[in-house]
């Protein structure tokens, strides 16, 4: 699957030099590029109420630590670890492992017979490309709303893995969840978005 392109190490080294030199364009770039995904991680770990504060603190820690940044990971991954550590310290005493035992079903159980076969027919969608699906404004809004309604941790896993191209083991480290847990959360997020498109296509 095609993932979001990562900036090269060379570009990042230049960016970091510009940041240390205090160039305003470099600050504009990192804030516009990374604030949203940092917020996503903070919300997934600490919840809505403290997320903004955790992200602000993470930015301040990151800027202070920037001269010591060794480039062992990408700048984005480094920032996400800083926000993750800040968020985790806010919920240190809370046992936050996501419970997956909530009766969630990828496809409603009444769609299968006793032997696990589908009752209903599933058809290939006519508009096969993302562009043709997204040409419909109403459907675009439905997908956006469906994304916003996902639990914060599902949005974070989906955003990091699917949109930011962060490897699954790194996603697990950042969110402090197991690989199987992360895979289930990713499947749930994808499936919910699939349902929203499917429902629209059926109407």
């Amino acid at each position, binding site marked *: *699957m*095609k993932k*979001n392109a990562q900036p090269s190490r060379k570009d990042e080294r230049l960016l970091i030099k510009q*940041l*240390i030199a*205090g160039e*305003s364009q470099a*600050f*504009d770039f990192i*804030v*516009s590029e990374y*604030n*949203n*995904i940092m*917020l*996503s991680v903070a*919300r997934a770990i600490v919840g809505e109420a403290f997320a*903004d504060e955790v*992200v*602000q603190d993470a*930015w*301040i820690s990151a*800027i*202070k630590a*920037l*001269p010591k940044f060794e480039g062992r990971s990408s700048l984005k991954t480094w920032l996400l670890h800083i926000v993750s550590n800040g968020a985790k310290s806010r919920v240190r005493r809370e046992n936050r492992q996501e419970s997956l035992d909530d009766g969630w079903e*990828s*496809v409603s159980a009444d769609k*299968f017979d006793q*032997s*696990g*076969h*589908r009752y209903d027919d*599933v*058809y*290939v*969608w006519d508009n*096969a*490309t*993302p*562009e043709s*699906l*997204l040409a419909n404004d109403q459907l*675009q809004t439905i*997908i*956006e709303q469906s*994304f*916003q309604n996902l639990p914060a941790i599902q*949005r974070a896993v989906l*955003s990091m893995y*699917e*949109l930011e191209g962060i490897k699954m083991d790194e996603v697990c480290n950042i969110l402090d969840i197991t690989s199987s847990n992360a*895979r289930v959360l*990713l*499947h749930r997020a*994808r*499936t919910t978005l*699939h349902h929203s*498109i*499917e429902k629209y296509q059926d109407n």
Partner: protein
Amino acid sequence: MAECKNIAEEASNLLDGEIPFRKRMALHLHLLYCSCCRAYVQQLKQTISTITVLRPQEKDATDTDALSKKLQELSKKH
């Protein structure tokens, strides 16, 4: 033998290549004779491609200009 329900549960892992060999073969065997599950997996694949094109984002009320300026000021002090 894999059934439709197994496909519904494992479709993401199947698309990401995260399934052990024997289980993967069983799911592929099911897909060979079940057009509904083939369509379902195809739809999920299209959903993933659509999300990567649409790139939905967190709701974010941050004043990014102000934050950028604040960080720039901070960096001058260090």
